């Protein structure tokens, strides 16, 4: 049991006939970002917000406010908070695993917020067995329960010694990628263009640790404010040069050339370069195949 941290939720994790006491802890919080104050330009003063009746413009005190659902223009159905509460099923405080799904089958676009899932003192054995079995079988688990006054589905997966439970967005909250991309032309890039792009990628391959990433925005904004106070003209954004279809191959060749020079590779003759490309192509066929079969189920978002 982690000390000094407050659990967001306590209950049971149930799989088959086994259940163990568990707790959920917020795994990620939203950091602070720069906020602006709303100002009255005419006076330079800050503004306050008040709530008024849209017709009479009279202030409406909190106790005179209620909730309504708009059905047609200006027509509302009033829903009392108690009625909303009544729609929430009684919580049985149990995350019951309904199904296991293969890790490669998980559609990550549904991910909402992550929580650390930990066992209580008594539940350690069952918890560890579930975690290791899921790791070995390479699956994640789907469970549902009432969390924070909503019926939430969570995706549970092993993570180090523990489990992470991510709340998932509802079906109606996720736009299908198929629909989003349906108007795009079906282009398949092959041959030299693909080889050049892959070469550029190969020179930029590495590792990335998100924990080490720094936000430069605040400093840049402070510079901008300083320039404005001092009456200096603000820098104009640089004009971006777009690659025209006719220039694309040349841009790729030039990029690949630059990369070659940068990585200090000996210049290859045209003949050598061709053999190299041929070899890569054969190898890629296999790689692409395995990549497609692995990723295919993910494309099924609707």
């Amino acid at each position, binding site marked *: *049991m982690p000390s000094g*941290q407050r659990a967001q939720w306590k209950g049971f994790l149930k799989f088959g006939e086994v259940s163990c006491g568990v707790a959920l802890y917020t795994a*990620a919080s939203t950091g602070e970002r720069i906020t602006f104050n709303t*100002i009255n*330009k*005419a006076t330079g003063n800050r*503004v*306050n917000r008040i*709530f008024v*009746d*849209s*017709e009479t413009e009279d202030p409406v005190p909190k106790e005179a*406010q209620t*909730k309504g659902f708009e*059905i047609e223009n200006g027509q*509302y*159905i009033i829903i009392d908070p108690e009625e909303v509460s009544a729609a*929430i099923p009684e919580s049985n405080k149990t995350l019951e695993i309904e*199904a*296991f*799904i*293969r890790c490669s*089958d998980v559609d990550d676009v549904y991910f909402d917020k992550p929580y*650390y899932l930990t066992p209580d003192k008594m539940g*350690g*054995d069952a*918890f*560890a*067995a579930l975690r*290791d*079995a899921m790791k070995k079988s390479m699956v994640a688990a*789907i469970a549902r329960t009432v969390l924070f006054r909503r019926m939430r*589905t969570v995706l549970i997966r092993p993570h180090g010694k523990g489990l992470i439970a991510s709340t*998932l*967005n509802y079906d109606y*909250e*996720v*736009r299908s990628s198929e629909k989003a991309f349906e108007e*795009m*032309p079906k282009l398949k890039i092959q041959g030299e263009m693909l080889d050049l*792009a*892959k070469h550029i990628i*190969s020179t930029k*391959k590495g590792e*990335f640790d*998100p*924990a080490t*990433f720094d936000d430069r*925005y605040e400093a*840049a904004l402070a*510079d901008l404010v300083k320039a404005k106070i001092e009456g200096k003209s603000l820098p*104009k954004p640089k004009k971006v040069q*777009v*690659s025209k279809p006719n220039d*694309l191959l040349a841009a790729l060749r*030039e*990029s690949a050339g*630059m990369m070659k020079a940068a990585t200090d590779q000996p210049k290859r003759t045209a003949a050598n370069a061709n053999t190299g490309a041929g070899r890569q192509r054969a190898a890629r066929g296999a*790689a692409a195949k395995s*990549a497609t079969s692995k990723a295919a189920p993910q494309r099924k978002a609707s």
Partner: protein
Amino acid sequence: MAPKYYWKGYLKLSLVTCPVAMTPATSESEKVRFHTLNKETGNRVVSRYIDSVTGKPVKGENEAKGYARGENDYVVLTEDDLDAVALDTVKTIDIDKFVPAESIEWIYFEKPHYLMPDDAVGNEAFAVIRDAMKSDNVVGISKLVMGRRERAVVLEPRDEGIVLWSLRFGDEVRPEEAYFEDIDEKADPDLVPLVQQLIKQKTARWSPNMVSDPIQDALLKLIEEKRKLLKPKKAAKGQKEQAARASNVVNIMDALRKSLEADLKNRQAG
């Protein structure tokens, strides 16, 4: 329902650049949402800004963003000013690194967006970057200013387009050690195969049905019942009533969809 783009800019790999548009992959537009009403009049309650010193209402065109320089001392910033912040990452996603797909921990994934070409001129360049990542089974790493922060982003090829994930910052992810330190590292070796058997029995394919929202369904039903009480029935018999009910349901869906525009507008403003 054509999605509105909430960001437009450029995707860049070395010397290859193409215009792109981005739209959030998730939306709250179809969630049942309530407005605040005045109990006494039944009218909507709306917010108004008043000057904190003079107490007078502030006209919309006088509302401005203020950067606090001191107490009660603000520098007014326009949208154009904000666009002029000296970071290329305001308008350009320059991919400077590629890593194996699935090497970024899920816990860092903050919000997904769909990225696509914004002009036919860039279709081929976009496809080159997408297909090269696909055939190498890598994802691209870049950075982009989103919501007044410069965030690391991951680009993963998907279908004809690219999914762009904004990533959480290191200080937004809580260190797992504090939570997991007391958990047993090894499980009972006799138990694990039994659980694996159970897993095998209960393995299913992913389906969006797994993320339905029964509470929203219940609220929609409640709204529908109240709606029926609102209007006296015209013909209270047989098939006619059935037809009326069906059309009411459609209307509620229309009403929900109508909020899409407002939802997207709000996101753009943010």
